[in-house]
């Protein structure tokens, strides 16, 4: 369970929002909605621990039994998907996935996991492919799989559907939510598209 207690965000003393309380259960998708500039992306950055220091924050983030506030970003186990797929351009498709896979999985098992993951996103045999040569939909799927392979304990979605075209969007949305349910991940979606919120099917919060 992902729990936010009394989260407040200020920039230069001006509050973006204050005393936000939220609970997301395993496998559930909660949507945060609001116009651009309301601080919804900053909220996710704060959860990840990557918010620039110009922001002042208070409150408490709890994931399962851990308090995240004092953990560095790479120890928080929060997976995030952005609007852009942000596949690393210098790595192959398979290497992008391998970057996320924990180091303790080694040798043949590591390669097998990646091949299996590629198969799951219908990209079998594309380990060596240049990410720049993939279609938009394929790239989005690689980004999703990369996030999941890092074995996160919760999923954050920062408008990851908004740049996909209409048809692709619906399909990818379904895939993402299915994975969230399957892996029992508490999921927080940030969007300004009501269709996203409707598809998520969980609680909706307006900022």
């Amino acid at each position, binding site marked *: 369970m992902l729990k936010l207690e009394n989260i407040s965000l200020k920039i230069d003393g001006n509050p973006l929002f204050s005393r936000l309380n939220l609970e997301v259960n395993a496998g559930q998708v909660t949507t945060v909605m609001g116009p651009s500039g309301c601080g919804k992306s900053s909220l996710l950055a704060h959860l990840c621990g990557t*918010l620039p220091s110009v922001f002042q*924050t208070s409150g408490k983030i709890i994931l399962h039994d851990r308090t995240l506030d004092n953990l*560095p970003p790479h120890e928080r186990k929060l997976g995030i998907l952005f609007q852009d797929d942000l596949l690393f351009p210098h790595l192959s498709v398979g290497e992008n996935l391998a970057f996320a896979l*924990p180091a303790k999985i080694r040798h043949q098992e590591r390669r097998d996991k990646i091949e299996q993951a590629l198969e799951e996103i219908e990209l079998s045999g594309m380990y060596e492919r*240049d990410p720049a040569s993939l279609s938009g939909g394929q790239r989005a799927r690689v980004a999703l799989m990369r996030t999941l392979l890092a074995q996160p304990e919760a999923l954050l979605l920062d408008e990851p559907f908004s740049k996909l075209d209409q048809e692709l969007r619906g399909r990818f949305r379904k895939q993402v939510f299915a994975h969230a349910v399957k892996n029992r991940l508490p999921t927080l979606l940030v969007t300004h598209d009501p269709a996203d919120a409707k598809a998520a099917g969980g609680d909706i919060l307006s900022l």
Partner: protein
Amino acid sequence: MATTIRTVSLLPAFPILTQLLFLLPIAAGLFGVLLPALGYLPDLGGNQFHFEIFSQLLEHPALPHAVWLTLFSGIIATILSLSLAVLLAAMLSRESLTGNKKNKKTSLFAIIRRGLIPLIAVPHAAMALGLAFLVAPSGWIVRWLSFLFMGWETPPEWVTVQDPFGLSLIFGLVLKETPYLLLMILAALQQIRAQEYIRIGQSLGYGNSLSWLKLVLPQVYPLIRLPVFAVLAFSLSVVDVALILGPTTPPTLSVLILRWIDDPDLSFRFLASAGAVLLLLLTLGSLIFWRFSEWLIFQKCRNWLSNGKRGNVNEVHNLAALSGSLLLGTAFLSLLGLAFWSLSLRWPYPLVLPQRWTSRNWERHWSSLQETAFTTLEVGVITGIIALFLVVGCLENEQWRSVRFSLRSQWMLYLPLLIPQATFLLGIQILAVRMEMDGTFLLLVWSHLLFVLPYIFLTLADPWRNLDARFPKIGQCLGASPLRILFHIKLPLLLKPLLVAAAIGFAVSVAQYLPTLFAGGGRFATLTTEAVSYAAGADRRVIGVYGFLQALFPWIALLLALAIPRWRFRNRAALL
């Protein structure tokens, strides 16, 4: 960042270490030169402080002329280089605006730019050696004139190289400094939205060039002030170019200082130290004078900026085309001349091409070439690696702790480029002799680092800061530590700027003359010190061999820096 990370908490050490490595030798150098200038140098029997050495210096018969020459050549060279660079930059941004590929004159500027920018990597000494042959009375230009029109049997009795007014020295400096300033201006143009301002100017009825002068230049100049200062300080205190192209009786102040140091009578070291202090004062005075002139010109031009006169300044177009081509042609022919000489068996006046070609010059000097080339490589590579390590540490510190590099730090980076080399390096040498550290490899690398690090920093800082910050962020969210992000995301993504910066650092190291001579205590022969020492001899074939190889070294480094990322990322479309 709300959280501290163990590796990140080590980062503040980098800027502190870098500052120490910079300030320590400079402070020590200034100290080390000031004491003997005031008469204190116990090793040579100076136990008391007094001002007699300065009065001795001021009464020296060669001094007034040397001072005049230094100021004249340094200031004129800076004014010319800056004007040419501004002119060419204006023409270039005009071209990128109209994008008119059919116009022959505009594409000429693209060629000039492509040709000029790589000249930054050519060591000053190599360029000067090539130029010396080109413009000498028995040089290439005269030979072609004689061959085509004049039919001179003997070389004309002109004094061109080492002329008493230092004109060839000025020319040699302009040849090297214009490309550097041009690159700095082009980089600055990207920071301000130059093209938009020109469009606004045009829509208000100003011509392209005038919009550039009235709207862009006033914004660009503050951004390139430090590089201009560095050019001025360098031109005032340059030694290798002045040895090759500058007048000899008397020479410029920096060369005079070098002569006093080389004097077998060791008591001349007092005079040399006083001369070095004077050179420092002259440089500081010139920088202040330049800053004041800037201010004055700006005051005078304020009215001109907004007087509403649209006017037409199309004449400058031809002037820019002419001077740009002249620079590029001279540089190209200078280097070609070196290559030809290195391959000639006999090339007497008035032949325009060698009478017989040979590889004998290279073979004869092969073993000593190998040795000097290896020393050059060793110093350049080791210095480059240390500088890269420090620069990357400083840039990482800046990003992880979100502190911005302050203006003060930027001035500090430029400090070794603003203080005359002859001044603080002489001081370092005097102190090093006392501490029995002179002629050590450590000191040599350290002295090169002072000049290599600023250029590596300036080359790498912008690409590093402009890297899409979301890549490291997503790396963090995937569970990667800062160190893993550095090695697996940032360094590979920035491979090209990283290697280009390393190549530029290497080129700077290769070009160093005075640091190698002073900090190396004369014990390390690099391609540059050898080339300059052969310059005094008459054998142009040997000069050709050393000069050409010296020019070739940085080129190879630069080519590798461009080729390696292309090969490494041949299957990564987004990075090509």
